[in-house]
């Protein structure tokens, strides 16, 4: 997304009727998010259809996946979402600083620099945990094409075909890695964009209560990625 501030000369001319009532970067981001909804519809919709087509023979997610670890990861992403919105609130109030003492309070008050950094750390943490999870899963023999022959999971599946969904392993691997992979890709893109903003805009204190479009726009993207994960976590890991 375009994250730079437009100069006054590049500002949109005044429309005769108010357009969406918001500035273009935000409107553009919302349109892009609508488009992304359709992208995830293709992936998640296919998963639902394929799983439906398999009847009740799907594997128990907890048997294959590490649900508590991913629960922790979900927590990380929710935290990053709330810190993002705190960053947004901070700059709307003009708090450009990192931390500042507030008289009469033990906790220091966080500014934009603090909250955005927390968001970046949580986001990067999420990606890190996901990479760790992938490595573990592949190590156990769970791959996009199914359970690797001779692997731990393949043996388990032989012993307990119902629990491990021996017949659906291929489909399970395909949908799991594609959906979570593309979500992870979105998170990675978000983290990179935030890092870019952090060094080019946030640290030089280019945002002000008058103009913090970059923060709001990347925030929208970030919350959307969180939203998708909330859906994905439930339908992939829990159901």
């Amino acid at each position, binding site marked *: 997304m375009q994250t730079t501030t437009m100069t006054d000369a590049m500002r949109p001319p005044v429309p005769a009727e108010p357009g969406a009532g918001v500035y273009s970067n935000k409107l553009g981001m919302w349109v892009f998010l609508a488009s992304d909804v359709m992208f995830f519809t293709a992936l998640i919709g296919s998963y639902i259809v394929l799983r439906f087509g398999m009847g009740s023979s799907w594997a128990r997610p907890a048997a294959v996946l590490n649900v508590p670890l991913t629960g922790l990861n979900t927590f990380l992403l929710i935290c990053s979402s709330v810190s993002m919105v705190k960053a947004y609130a901070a700059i709307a109030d003009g708090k450009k600083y990192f931390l500042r003492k507030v008289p009469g309070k033990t906790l220091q008050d966080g500014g934009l620099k603090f909250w955005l950094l927390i968001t970046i750390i949580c986001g990067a943490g999420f990606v890190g945990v996901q990479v760790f999870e992938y490595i573990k899963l592949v190590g156990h023999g769970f791959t996009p094409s199914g359970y690797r022959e001779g692997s731990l999971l393949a043996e388990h599946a032989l012993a307990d075909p119902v629990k491990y969904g021996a017949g659906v392993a291929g489909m399970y691997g395909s*949908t799991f890695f594609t959906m979570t992979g593309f979500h992870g890709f979105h998170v990675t893109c978000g983290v990179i964009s935030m890092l870019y903003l952090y060094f080019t805009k946030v640290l030089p204190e280019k945002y002000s209560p008058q103009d913090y479009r970059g923060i709001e726009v990347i925030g929208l993207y970030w919350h959307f990625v969180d939203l998708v994960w909330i859906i994905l976590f439930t339908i992939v890991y829990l159901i």
Partner: protein
Amino acid sequence: MTAVAHTSTKAHHAPMSFWRKYIFSTDHKIIGIQFLFVSLFFLLVGGLLAMQIRWQLGFPGKPLPGGGILPESMVSGGVILPEYYIQLVTMHGTFMVFFAIMPLLVGVYANFLIPLKIGTHDMAFPRINMWSFWLALLAGLIMLAGFFVPDGAPRAGWTMYAPLSARPDLSGATISQKLWSISIVVLGLSSVMGSVNYITTIINHRAPGMTWFRMPLSVWALFITAILAVLALPVLQGAAIMLLFDQTLGTHFFDPGAGGQPLLWQHLFWFFGHPEVYILILPAMGMASDIIANGSRKPIFGYHSMVFAIIGIAFLGWLVWGHHMFMSGMNPTLGSTFMVSTLLIAVPSAIKVFNWLGTMWRGNLRFHVPMLNAIGFVSMFTIGGLSGIFMAATPVDIPLHDTQFIVAHLHYVLFGGSLFALFAAIPYWYPKMFGRMMSERIGKVHFYLTFVFYNMTFFPMHIIGMGGQMRRIYDPTIYDFLKPQQPLNRFISYSAFALFAVQFLFLFNFLWSLKRGKKAPQNPWEDNGMEWSLPNPAPHGNWDKTPNVYRGPYEFSAPEAGDKDYLPQYVKLPTDRDPVPAPLPAGGH
């Protein structure tokens, strides 16, 4: 922060290097022109492929003239091989749909016309716009590369039905099938970037006075098209990614052996594909509306119903994708639903055709080349629309599905519809792009010859299709029931060659006029659009000061116009008041 005074946009017009100005340009007009050259190139490539298809269908087993330059993997002794033939049909469809017609309509004219027609300086996100072009070009080159890799181009038809497309051992092409998927993902990204831009620009950047119902129909059509693209392309991207993973990572989305569903691909593809059909025709309808109103010197008949017809087509367009799958073994009840929605889509299309006729009724028709082509568009689109009804009625679709009848139908819509509208649009806005006029004389000869040869090429295909000739077959003569049709097939081929040859007139006219064309006056067509308030070609940044809009786009022959028969949107009559600018959206929330 509230309203900011309009500052002059001249401020950032520092002289730019050649590279910034013409190659990595962020100017919407330059990007439009870049799209124009690239997509005309792909149009030519697609045409060349079509000629080889026609040669094989008309003269199966005869050596292709000039076929000697092709490698042995494609032709044997000059004769096209079956594996090359299916590459031809696949790539002809792919290039024409994704890299010729779609960028010609959306890439060129959405970019070029939207800011000019709504009275703004550039797109909302000029740099994203530039990326949109470069990604489209990259996607086109990846697709083209398919011809030059071992095993040749993709071989599963432009619809890439799985599992044929997913398994190299079944299709015979390994690398290029993957290239197809990658190229489509990149193209999808490009289209989404472009469409986000168009939507944002139209919603937020209209000049004061340019209310929703003062927008020209071309802008309305491009707006709705962008909405379709922004919601449809990601579905194709998702499907192409799944296909790519099936081809490379060993996933099983479309592999029935592991519980995958081949029909899932068709659903996803056509859920994108039918809106795509409207992406390919709505802009053509919009631009033809502008040109017909201009050529008739009359306001468009039923402007509001034209707008609602566009919206209606776009809305229904999401509910009809199943009609591409009537024979796929789908639930017949679903088939019935899809049949009804498909038949209903004929209604807004009929409204549009009759309103074009109504526009011409009691007009004062000027037959300049754009108008001729626009009339050609109306008459040919009518045939294309009506022939669709045969296939929408499910029982009649049974013998016609996947035969040459559908080929005829889709060419009547895409060639007779979209391409004729483009033959109208290109000369119409040529002066705005290059400052010169295309030759009227060559243009007229080109139109008449194209019109005749076009009908000679595609009309008989209906009959061939009724006779049962399947699509994409390499040699119809091996079937007893198709043999008697061979003379007609040859006739089609001769006409197609003539049709192709005639297009060089257009190409010559286009290129020759770049340097030698007549200098264009400021408003050569005496049109009402905002773009004609600018000199030709339009300068960088368009207007110095944001213009005001005083009326609707089709005030031809209005009584207030006095002795002239047009009244541009930018002309302020003594009775007009300046529009009140709305407050600028604040920089924060």
